[in-house]
């Protein structure tokens, strides 16, 4: 797993992937964003012939000299195919309101205590206005109302509004594909249709 950060400039992705290609690497997955003018990329790369951490860092630095890149390389050890995280349904949590230190930490703490796993998160402050949009897997035995009431309690104390909504509502309103129900409900509908 390779992560590269730098002040954003045109050509960084070209440079980094070029260096990896020169080493014979094949990109398996990649995620890149620019946040407040700062570029970040994370790549999972497969090398048919073993490469050391230093070789990879050196190649990326060498080819991207003009970008002043910060590079970190972590070798993925063979082990369980997937990380052991709890299963659940995907909900979108949105928190809006006045900014203050510790909001993300507190909300993440509540979710962790309930066994809800954060799978994606974006938060920002515009002026004094804080906004957070998070995707979390909420365990099947936990109702969204339980999470919501805890977030609302926190929000009341910190002038924040909190919302917990199943992701299908956002898929329905933004994607032209057919409306999705959860798998359990779909099978219920199918069995009904066959009678």
């Amino acid at each position: 797993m390779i992560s590269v950060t730098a002040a954003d400039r045109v050509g960084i992705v070209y440079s980094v992937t070029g260096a990896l290609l020169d080493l014979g690497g094949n990109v398996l997955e990649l995620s890149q964003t620019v946040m407040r003018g700062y570029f970040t990329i994370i790549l999972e790369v497969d090398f048919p012939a073993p490469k050391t951490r230093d070789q990879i860092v050196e190649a990326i630095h060498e080819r991207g000299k003009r970008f002043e890149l910060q590079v970190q390389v972590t070798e993925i050890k063979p082990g369980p195919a997937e990380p052991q995280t709890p299963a659940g349904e995907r909900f979108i949590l949105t928190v809006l309101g006045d900014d203050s230190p510790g909001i993300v930490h507190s909300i993440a703490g509540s979710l962790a205590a309930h066994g809800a796993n954060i799978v994606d998160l974006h938060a920002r402050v515009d002026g004094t206005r804080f906004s957070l949009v998070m995707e979390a897997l909420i365990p099947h035995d936990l109702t969204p109302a339980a999470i919501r009431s805890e977030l609302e309690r926190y929000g009341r104390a910190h002038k924040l509004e909190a919302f917990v909504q199943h992701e299908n509502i956002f898929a329905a309103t933004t994607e032209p594909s057919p409306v999705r129900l959860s798998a359990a409900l779909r099978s219920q509908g199918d069995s009904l249709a066959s009678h």
Partner: protein
Amino acid sequence: MHRTEDVLATLSMIRQHKLDVRTVTMGIDLAPCASPDVAVLCDRIRARLIHYAGRLRAVCREVEARYGIPIVNRRIAVSPIGRIAAGQKAEGLLAVARTLDAVAAEVEVDLVGGFTALVQKGWTDSERRLIAALPEVLSTTKRVCSSVNVGTTAAGINMDAVAALGHVLKETAELTRDHDGFGCAKLVIFGNAPNDNPFMAGAFHGAGETDCVINIGVSGPGVVKAAVEDLVAHAPTRPTLGDIAEEIKSTAFRVTRVGELIGREVAARLGVAFGIVDLSLAPTPQIGDSVGEILQAMGVSRLGGPGSTAALALLNDAVKKGGSFASSSVGGLSGAFVAVSEDAALARAVEVGDLTLAKLEAMTAVCSVGLDMIAVPGDTDAETLSALIADEVAIGVINHKTTAVRVIPVPGKKAGERAVFGGLFGEMDILAIHAAGGSAEFVRHGGRIPAPLSSLRN
């Protein structure tokens, strides 16, 4: 990952612009309940409604919590009672109405529709008795809503029924005099009534439907208004009316999809069929939840003035197009309602004299429903009311569309005085009827206005 902007845009529609599911309406076929014995009939109706709707409230609450979308009303629509209670005398019909009212309270739905007669071509003795019983039913029950379909494009207009309904309106208003004739607000007189409309007071479970079905009514005038205002304020150049139509279409898409998702989920959880989603811009008296304000956002500052009909036509058509793209299960009325007392901007336009009954009638030629929630002087004679009904139904019958009349002759009040219905039904100044009192001979001819020709359509 859903884009943050998309999440916040959807959330904004719900929080700031009052997007909601206006109604989850459960349609229930009552045909298996029929019995000549009124006690048996009422027992069967009660058991069947509780069987299907007993869990409706709980399931709606679950779905509301899951998606964070308010479900404002839960309702039941039953098969037209004019057929289900065939053979019943007035007392039997009242017993059925009271049973519906009681069960609606028990399963916690706010309204139950279907005390209905479909008499566009002719009427049975039972249906004649049902229409005669309406004043008592509407004045003594709280939740029962009624509709009468008096015309279709295929059958023409049953003017005998239209004539009778003028008297029904007068009598119902008088029996609910203390509430400005509010009983009439629970009666819709239709031309080309849809079988699957989830909105009250005109919902009923029509022919060709299954045992039990969930139909959804979504609204959102505030969402559409905000979208139009945003486009007008922020577009780099002045948007054309085509641009505005496109913006309304894409907003209608999003609103309709919310309705379909909620409807399918409620139906699946209850183990019944999902029917249709009806995106109708249904106003409430709250500021910012008005169809009139959408027309104003489009640039028609004086509602009822020239341009109002064209703007409404654009709005209605764009809503239908957006809805049709969003879902293959669009039905009901699907358009824009101009329910005057329920719409703060339209009610204001009446107050200042910009919006007249004649202009409203013209506007109903291009939008959903028809003359809806309109207070008229209490001394209007029954024949004038019937002629008003005939005019509006004729617009629908000739133009192959649904039209309807929900007028309230307010006892003891004249044009310009205030009629107050309260809650979502709102209030308005009473509208004058121009050249009233001269249509009695026309109405008294009775019989049927023949079905219109379906060719040579210019």
